[in-house]
């Protein structure tokens, strides 16, 4: 597909095209629940460049979805509050913008794909109408052209017989096809960044692979930044360039995909990797990480992972580990990051 031309300055005043595409710095999100404030994200820092895929991996409740909601500006508030940090698109801090600017940013710059495509599509309107409406409301396209664009997009995301299926309703599509429709909608306005929040969790395994391949291919064709949020390290391996591992609202480790898989520098990542079922360990019992993720309202002192950590020492329950660089482009939050990295622990 031809390279698309995006005009950024019109819709995002103050944009600096030389600044990184999307940067999140020290993002803090809290939820106000029954008078107390529960931290959900405690200082997330990451960046996505054009043409790059960043995977954010973590267990349920690790704050990965909340992070993406905060970036999109769709956090339910109350109870959610962004209490600190910056989300910069082309150098412009989105958190400082008014509601209308944020809306146009959502329309023109950042797209999102949801986990459950059935509930993310309105059952009352045909898919073609829902896609076409985006062109009509944001681009002023005529009704006829909008329908043609919708067909074009459905074709792009690999829906066979798009011409006839454009008038069908979401319930007439299978799970995988529905997710393709969802992706088509997210792509309609040609975003620079696409956030996919567990896009394959609701699908069966064979379809998962197809959808991931589709996302990867579209990301390459359109030279987008892709943020892939998942709890499945296996899904990440083929697609991501960069992986950030989240635990209890913090990024525990961030590195290139190969470094994460080959030389993890954090005990949590290491434990996660061991827990992936593999062909050569067939028949053996799976490794597990004992214990449960901590209650965000009562986080353990020191390193939040220490109660479940196989490498923990006294120091870990007292002192919060710093987020340090162990190698170029490889950061880890652990007192023993160096040793884990060198495989001495």
């Amino acid at each position, binding site marked *: 597909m031809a390279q698309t031309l995006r005009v950024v300055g019109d819709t995002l005043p103050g944009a600096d095209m030389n600044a990184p595409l999307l940067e999140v710095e020290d993002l803090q999100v809290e939820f106000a629940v029954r008078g107390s404030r529960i931290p959900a994200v405690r200082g997330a820092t990451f960046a996505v460049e054009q043409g790059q895929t960043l995977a954010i991996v973590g267990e349920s409740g690790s704050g990965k979805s909340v992070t993406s909601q905060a970036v999109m500006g769709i956090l339910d508030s109350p109870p959610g509050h962004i209490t600190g940090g910056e989300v910069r698109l082309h150098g412009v801090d989105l958190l400082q913008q008014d509601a209308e600017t944020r809306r146009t940013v959502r329309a023109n710059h950042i797209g999102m794909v949801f986990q459950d495509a059935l509930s*993310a599509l*309105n*059952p*009352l*309107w045909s898919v073609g109408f829902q896609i076409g409406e985006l062109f009509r409301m944001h681009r002023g396209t005529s009704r006829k052209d909008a329908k043609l664009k919708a067909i074009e997009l459905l074709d792009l995301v690999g829906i066979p017989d798009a011409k006839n299926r454009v008038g069908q309703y979401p319930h007439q599509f299978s799970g995988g096809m529905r997710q393709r429709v969802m992706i088509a909608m*997210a792509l309609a306005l040609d975003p620079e960044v696409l956030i996919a929040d567990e896009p394959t969790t609701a699908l069966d395994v064979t379809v998962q692979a197809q959808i991931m391949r589709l996302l990867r291919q579209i990301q390459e064709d359109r030279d987008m930044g892709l943020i892939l949020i998942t709890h499945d390290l296996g899904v990440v391996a083929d697609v991501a360039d960069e992986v950030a591992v989240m635990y209890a609202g913090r990024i525990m480790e961030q590195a290139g995909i190969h470094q994460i898989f080959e030389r993890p520098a954090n005990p949590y990542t290491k434990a996660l990797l061991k827990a992936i079922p593999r062909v050569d360990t067939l028949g053996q019992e799976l490794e597990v990480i004992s214990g449960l993720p901590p209650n965000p309202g009562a986080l353990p002192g020191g390193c939040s992972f220490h109660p479940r950590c196989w490498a923990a020492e006294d120091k870990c329950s007292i002192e919060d580990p710093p987020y340090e660089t162990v190698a170029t482009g490889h950061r880890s939050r652990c007192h023993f990051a160096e040793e884990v990295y060198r495989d001495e622990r």
Partner: protein
Amino acid sequence: MSESLSSEAPQASLWKDAFRTMRRRPDVILAALILLFVATMAVFPTLFTDKDPTRCIGRDARQRPDTWFRGEHPLGTDGFGCDFAATIVHGTRPTIALAVTVIVFSILIGLTLGILSGYYGGWVDAIISRALDVFIVIPLMMGAILLLSLFRGRGSSGGLLETVGPPALALTLFGWMEFCRYTRAVSIETKNLDYVTAARCLGAKDRRIMFRHVLPNAVVPVTAVVPTTLGSIIVAESALAVLGVGVQPPATSWGVLLAKGTEWAGGGYIYLFGLPLVLLILTVFAFATIGDALRDALDPKLR
């Protein structure tokens, strides 16, 4: 309400499909025929009777229609000697005009306030909900009587607006709350659905979300309430007529006939009460059937 549904291109086929589905149901055809009959009576009363309903002769009072549909008075005469067939037929237009006006404005007010309060919540919701509480607490009859007493004594020249206007205003003012409550509940439920979040992620404005996603979900509960409300409006109008503040003579309506008919119903003149009641029941039945069928036909999942 159906405006927003029918305004978009692919919906042309949606309505076509709905029509095709409905055409196959015998109860719908029957209901449509009843409505057509009532509507024709309302628009062209002279097709059904050539008598003047205001020309009443005292010595002809209370003639039983012994020879049904034949003779001078096909349905007999009422307590004042007016031709009963003419009264019923000419009473249709004010009745239907009143009911439709009240329903349309109640829905407009109820939907607007309900969607605003449910969608925005916060202080908007607080104000609208408290206003709602106040209007629910005021008994319909008391509110309507108080309001209508302002219009009393003002001579009526018999124009439709003048005849129907005051009771319609009173019944709308104290009748929109049910629509508002249902719509508010639907809005609160809908605004947290994934597809609304998805629409927001795609840069949809509030207004767009309200029209495209919230409003269609309100159609089902609202159409469910319309037929019964229609019945209760006509009954309420009849009660206002008894109290002398409803549709003012010389104009008449089914409500007025019901009210007057009760006086004679015990004395062997049951038809004076029964005929308008049967018409009312048939009309409500027809609206209920069509509303129900329309709801089924418009639901893409049932097709």
